[in-house]
């Protein structure tokens, strides 16, 4: 542990420090938005948005390299694709009478396919594994600013509209009857989810996004009696998983994203097991 401490403050390891800062700051929106995703039961939608992000990254690379618009960071493409997917998926789940899951499953795959096709027609070689599984080396100074921005936006929206968002997640029909524009809040929630997912993609990659978005709130939900407590606990858990994941991955020279997910997943399953055993022993 002391070793890691020294490593952390070694000037050569600024990337590790940056990853730690971003991971810590990002835990707040992950905890808040993750709680909404879990309680509103839209993790499947979050998964579809995450995979559409890949289409945006592919398009971003194409625009940047093939079209020569150098200022266009692929992350802009990712954010645009995420917001676009959030609105489309939101409208489908609101207005599709049936087969909602099939349509969303199709979008999920189309997003992935579009990403690969864009990369095919873009000259040069790209290592897509860093997008799929995350890479802390990819985290840049601009991510830090983006995280701070997202912190402010999610904290502000969820404090300002806490009761309304709570109502829309807990009992949408009743919220509607109290004059709340439930559809608009639902789309807003999906847009916030989509920006959060883009950030998560940087850390743990597209494929494992849902795990880090849903595992901390799932654990928190076991202990929390109120929604805000669930948010607070899952933010803390998210930070703890990120820190320990980064530490373990550095120590044993492992990929950081999968290590974070593995620690979170095992913690969740162990807690479920302990609860089950406790109930049996009673």
């Amino acid at each position, binding site marked *: 542990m002391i070793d890691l401490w020294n490593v952390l403050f070694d000037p050569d390891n600024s990337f590790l420090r940056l990853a730690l800062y971003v991971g810590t700051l990002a835990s707040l929106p992950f905890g808040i938005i993750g709680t909404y995703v879990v*309680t509103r*039961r839209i993790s499947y939608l979050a998964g579809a948005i995450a995979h559409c992000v890949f289409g945006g990254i592919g398009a971003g690379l194409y625009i940047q390299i093939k079209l020569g618009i150098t200022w266009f960071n692929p992350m802009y493409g990712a954010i645009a694709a995420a917001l676009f997917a959030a609105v489309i998926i939101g409208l489908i789940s609101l207005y599709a009478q049936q087969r909602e899951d099939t349509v969303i499953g199709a979008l999920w795959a189309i997003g992935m396919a579009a990403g690969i096709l864009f990369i095919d027609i873009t000259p040069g070689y790209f290592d897509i594994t860093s997008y799929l599984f995350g890479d802390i080396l990819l985290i840049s100074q601009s991510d830090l600013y983006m995280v701070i921005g997202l912190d402010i936006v999610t904290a502000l929206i969820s404090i*300002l*509209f*806490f*009761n*309304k968002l*709570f*109502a829309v*997640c*807990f*009992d949408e*029909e*009743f*919220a*509607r*009857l*109290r*004059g*709340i524009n439930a559809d608009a809040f639902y789309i807003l929630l999906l847009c916030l989810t989509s920006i959060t997912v883009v950030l998560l993609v940087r850390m743990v990659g597209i494929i494992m996004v849902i795990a880090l978005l849903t595992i901390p709130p799932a654990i928190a*939900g076991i202990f*929390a*009696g*109120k*929604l805000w*407590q*669930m948010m607070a606990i899952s933010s803390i858990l998210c930070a703890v998983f990120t820190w320990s994941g980064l530490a373990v991955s550095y120590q044993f020279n492992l990929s950081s994203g999968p290590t974070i997910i593995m620690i979170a997943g095992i913690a969740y399953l162990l807690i479920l097991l302990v609860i089950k055993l406790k109930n049996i022993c009673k």
Partner: protein
Amino acid sequence: MAQNNIDVQLKDVFFFYNGVPILEDVNLEIKSGAFAAIVGPNGGGKTTLLKLLLGLLKPDKGKILILGKSPEKSRLRVGYMAQYAHLDLQFPVTVKDVVLMGRLGRNRLGWYSRDDIHAAESSLAEVQLANYASHRFSELSGGQRQRVLIARALCCDPELLLLDEPTANVDPQMGETLMKILQTLNNRMTILLVSHDIGFVSQVVKSVICVNRQVLVHPTSSLNGMVIKEIYGGDFCMVRHDHSCSMKNHYHD
């Protein structure tokens, strides 16, 4: 509550689902102060009628007025109790927070004032659950949860109270308590409740609205076998409530 005002008015209302008529040519007027039950067989259109009154569904033809305005415009003056079965019991929420939802829509951001919290507490007291305010919603029994949802509807301070199957999932004794609470509430608001349990509600409500694609209104006093058979379209068991054995000339071993 002004007497002789018409709280609910439906004129020539039709509702179709995928081309199939669910409600046909419904004409209905419910006066202020009424206490009525909407009864009928499953699939007869009870829930559809309720959702039309709430403005969650729109009629394909005809006109609906609630408290003199369109259902959407009157929403904040109507209290609605849904069945708790559609709620996620794993949701981390306290009883008080559920009841407070009734005060939403009163200000732009949806923050609760001191008055709102008082209103929630007194609504909980009205359904005899004052001591449960800080309990988790999922810890309560079915009957208690149903009463919390009634408290939430009361917290809206409604002029018209709509209830969807308030006695479903509730044991008979609790059902009677619920009905007594509703009878008291009827002194200050119009109440309409959906029930499949005609025997149970006919003791307390003043009139019965029968829904089976068409809608007919009967005063409770005229309920008899023929009418009920007409509604449900078949044989049934009927329990008479107007006749009870006195304890004196009735022996138990």
